């Protein structure tokens, strides 16, 4: 069941004109911003499929940039997102891609600054619901509807148990979890969707595990 809440159907409250091309795009942009964790110096956005064909008419461009500025789907500042990004000194580049993707509404976002960059691929599946399907080359599934923690770690025994113990101690319930790795023994990624927003203390605790390289949280 892809849609679990009635508010996936009656909602979201949003700026028009398209739930998949506007609200969904804003949500993909916002997840990228949260994952990056700070204001980027540049944002390179690639549109695929129906996004590439019709993004101007749907305001997909302003919506995705609005998301990168951390605006919610109903934030009326979305309409002026391009000029607001310019004011904040964020360089925006958009590309229409011809490549065929699995889903008709796909966008790739690269956010970066002098200290680093992230690259993610998101799809907008309808009614404003999105999935993040790739992060820094890792294949993943993330609904964007629940708080989540992404943990980049070394692919070694005890990593999952270490994180799970901390979550259990803080009485956090795991709704969905997935682990993937680039190669055996190399960099790996743990994606954990949870039921409630995460306390910064908990993130610090996970970060302090020797096996963990980076922790990112996404609040609801």
């Amino acid at each position: 069941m892809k849609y679990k809440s009635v508010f996936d159907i009656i909602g979201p409250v949003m700026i028009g004109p398209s739930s998949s091309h506007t609200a969904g795009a804003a949500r993909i942009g916002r997840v990228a911003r949260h994952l990056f964790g700070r204001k980027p110096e540049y944002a390179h956005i690639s549109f695929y499929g129906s996004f590439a064909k019709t993004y101007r008419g749907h305001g997909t461009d302003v919506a995705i940039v609005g998301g990168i500025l951390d605006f919610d789907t109903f934030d009326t500042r979305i309409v002026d997102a391009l000029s607001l990004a310019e004011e904040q000194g964020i360089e925006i580049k958009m590309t229409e891609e011809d490549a065929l993707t699995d889903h008709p509404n796909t966008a790739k976002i690269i956010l970066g600054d002098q200290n680093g960059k992230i690259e993610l691929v998101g799809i907008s599946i309808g009614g404003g619901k999105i999935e993040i399907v790739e992060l820094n080359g890792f294949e993943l599934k993330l609904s964007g509807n629940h708080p989540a923690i992404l943990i980049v770690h070394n692919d070694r025994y005890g990593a999952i148990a270490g994180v799970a113990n901390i979550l259990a101690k803080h009485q956090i319930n795991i709704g969905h979890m997935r682990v993937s790795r680039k190669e055996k023994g190399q960099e790996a990624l743990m994606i954990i969707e949870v039921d409630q927003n995460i306390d910064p203390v908990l993130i610090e605790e996970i970060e302090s595990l020797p096996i963990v390289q980076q922790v990112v949280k996404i609040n609801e």
Partner: protein
Amino acid sequence: MFRNVAELVELAEAKECKISDIMIEQEMEFTGRTKDEIISQMDRNLKVMEEAVERGITEDVKSHSGLTGGDAILLQNYLKSGKSLSGEFMLDAVSKAIATNEVNAAMGTICATPTAGSAGVVPGTLFALKDKLNPTREQMVAFLFASGAFGFVVANNASISGAAGGCQAEVGSATGMAAAAIVELAGGTPSQSAEAMAIALKNMLGLVCDPVAGLVEVPCVKRNAMGASNAIVAADMALAGIKSRIPCDEVIDAMYKIGQSMPTALKETAQGGLAATPTARELEAKIFGIALEKK
């Protein structure tokens, strides 16, 4: 948890409650939130819908492209003349559906039901019913839960996205959802709601998604208007005791399969249908400042 319309109706009948109650209960189970929290969130969505309808029927809303806006007011004025052929209630619903979609096209604030492109049908019918049946606020919120329950089934078993399933999946779903909710608000049974949904959706099957210039304006706004009228007629038919020969879940399945066999040009790519007509191509070139021969 219900997975299809048959289970939804069965649950409501077994518990002797309304479809909307089943949806609220399921939401409580899924999210662990209280009934009050869930109802107040839906109440906020209702308020957004109300404000969009109000804005659309009173302000001269114009979209950025200039393709849409002002038609809801035209209909409201026409209604006041007392000359309407299809009846005041019907046209009031139609104008309120248009109002919502005009606000949507102008990048105003709306609540997706189930999507932004189809956001007019459910509130359009609801706010016309508000004047006709004088429902309580609680009943109006219940209307949204009832329509949400049917939309939930469509979204999980077929699609609610024009890009995935054509306009039948978008305005078609909204029309079925509204028809079912109207039946509940008007005092019909859960199974009558299912019949109304089936009848309404049956008459939207095959509807392609062909937005002119890729904008959610033409024909989307007027399709929401027709969706609202279709929903009202389907609800009346079901309340009269008429049944759909094809069960609701099979209609939804048929819609899904039609969507899958529809060519990409007719699924929100602005490459076929009305979007490919000479006038649409001219409008597109004008709006985006592109030379026509490049299209």
